[in-house]
């Protein structure tokens, strides 16, 4: 019994001892924690006192401010100033001279934005190496970077092609299928410029992108360049749209040089009327045929023909109005600004740009000449002669090139109306340049 009482008492004492020990440990920890907090508070107070006491160095601050200014960066690298001057020249051409203002104005503004030093509105490095660095897009990509995705992924040119298709009448082409030959001949400029660009030292992909300027088709040029040589997008877009605006200046001398007065006076026979059923089936048929032959051209041709089908079927008026106006205008704004934004000083101010401009105008001239010469050749065999002036309309530039044919034709014969005849090669040129782009993409892409 006594033994049991001793064990019980010892157990109770042991429990008390453990409890006291725990309490003592807690107390020690609390003390230590309190001491640490006190020391930390003292340190923070000391640091705060030091911060408060530190004086602002006005000189250093001002130096940092001036170093951060765009003007300083511009003084260090005058290429920015040159690019801004070029943007202002494009503004002048767009606003005063009205050279393709719908696209040249946004392109010029994009060029201005991207060349404001220090603003950092467009980040080329996100698209370096020809592909999108998606992981970096979340860190600091701006509006222009996100909008540029539409160009990079080939979205805007295709959407614009839907609008172009919905505003194009393929009736003259259906009425006179021979027009397609003129449209094909006018693609001579593309391949001749490809050849020339290779001689100038551009690689094959770059040369193909430069050559497509000769197609006189802005969306196609941007589509192909964004796939093959995205670093040349700025100069190629500026060259393509500038030359398209200059079609009334570039083409007439070539047309007069290659034709005689008698040839320019040829009056063409009125073309047959085209039924609505033909116009509805045509876009479906062309999409199937060309996409099966050239899958790389399917995106452009498919979008072009979708827009045309919307217009011709007549049952989706709301959609037709949307693609002709709102969709097309929105895409044009985004495309223009972002393409302009790629024209940075580093990429634009180089000898390569001069080469692009030179080959671009060569491509235009050769394309126009190719159409005219083939028309003259066809006249050797045709009973009903065609006016060679409509051959130059084979370069796309719808409807500017057709209007030029009309104007030059009326200079020789005021009663001659070539406009509708020229619209055939003109829309054939759109198909031809899209086919040429598909071929180049499949060969070099």
């Amino acid at each position, binding site marked *: 019994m006594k033994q049991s009482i001793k064990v019980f008492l010892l157990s109770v004492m042991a429990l008390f001892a453990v409890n006291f020990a725990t309490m003592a440990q807690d107390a020690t920890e609390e003390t230590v924690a309190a001491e640490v907090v006190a020391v930390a508070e003292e340190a923070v107070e000391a640091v705060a006192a030091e911060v408060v006491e530190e004086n602002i160095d006005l000189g250093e601050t001002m130096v940092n401010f001036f170093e951060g200014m765009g003007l300083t960066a511009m003084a260090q690298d005058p290429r920015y100033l040159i690019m801004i001057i070029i943007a202002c020249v494009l503004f002048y051409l767009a606003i005063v001279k009205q050279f393709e203002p719908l696209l040249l104005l946004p392109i010029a503004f994009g060029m201005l934005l991207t060349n404001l030093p220090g603003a950092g509105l467009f980040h080329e490095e996100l698209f370096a190496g020809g592909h999108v660095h998606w992981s970096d897009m979340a860190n600091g990509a701006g509006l222009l970077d996100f909008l540029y995705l539409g160009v990079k992924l080939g979205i805007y040119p295709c959407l614009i092609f839907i609008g172009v298709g919905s505003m194009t009448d393929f009736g003259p082409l259906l009425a006179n299928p021979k027009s397609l030959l003129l449209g094909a001949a006018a693609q001579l400029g593309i391949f001749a410029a490809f*050849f020339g660009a290779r001689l100038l030292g551009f690689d094959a992909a770059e040369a193909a992108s430069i050559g497509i300027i000769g197609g006189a088709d802005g969306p196609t040029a941007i589509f192909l360049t964004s796939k093959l040589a995205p670093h040349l997008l700025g100069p190629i877009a500026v060259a393509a749209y500038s030359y398209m605006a200059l079609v009334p200046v570039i083409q007439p001398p070539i047309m007069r040089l290659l034709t005689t007065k008698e040839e320019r006076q040829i009056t063409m026979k009125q073309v047959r009327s085209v039924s609505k059923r033909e116009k509805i089936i045509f876009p479906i048929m062309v999409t199937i045929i060309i996409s099966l032959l050239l899958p790389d051209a399917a995106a452009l041709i498919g979008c072009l023909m979708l827009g045309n089908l919307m217009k011709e079927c007549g049952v989706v008026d709301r959609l037709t109005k949307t693609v002709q106006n709102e969709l097309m205008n929105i895409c044009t704004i985004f495309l223009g600004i972002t393409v302009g934004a790629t024209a940075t000083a580093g990429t634009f101010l180089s000898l390569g740009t001069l080469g692009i401009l030179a080959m671009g105008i060569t491509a235009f001239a050769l394309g126009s000449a190719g159409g005219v010469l083939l028309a003259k050749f066809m006249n050797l065999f045709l009973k009903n002669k065609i006016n060679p002036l409509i051959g130059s309309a084979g370069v796309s530039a719808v409807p500017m090139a057709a209007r030029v044919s009309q104007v030059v034709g009326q200079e020789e014969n005021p009663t001659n109306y070539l406009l509708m005849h020229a619209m055939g090669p003109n829309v054939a040129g759109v198909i031809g340049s899209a086919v040429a782009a598909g071929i*180049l993409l499949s060969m070099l892409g």
Partner: protein
Amino acid sequence: MTLLAINWNNIILVTCVGFGIVFIVLVLLIAIITLFGKVMAPKAKVTKTTTTTDAHNATVKVEKTEEGHIPALDSAAIAAALHMYFDEVHDEESLVVTIKTVERRYSPWNSKIYGLNNNFTR
């Protein structure tokens, strides 16, 4: 040196074959469209005669062009009329009355009471 480094075979291949394929594809399209046109084109008689009876019961032939279309001048006239209609370049009244009343003050010179004709009696 640059010229020597260029692979001429590739350039000629892309240029000639590319241009050739463009031609082939479009010539194929010509063939299909021509065939398609023959099947789908609206059928029209070479000449179509309609008879109208005038005061002397004479028959007037209204000839159309070889393809059965209306003549080019008629097309031009219709196009001009449509252009004027859609661009509102027509002589339709704007339905705004522009005639304003003019207040004429009384004067013996324009009086109807003392007119020359008032002296006649019947």
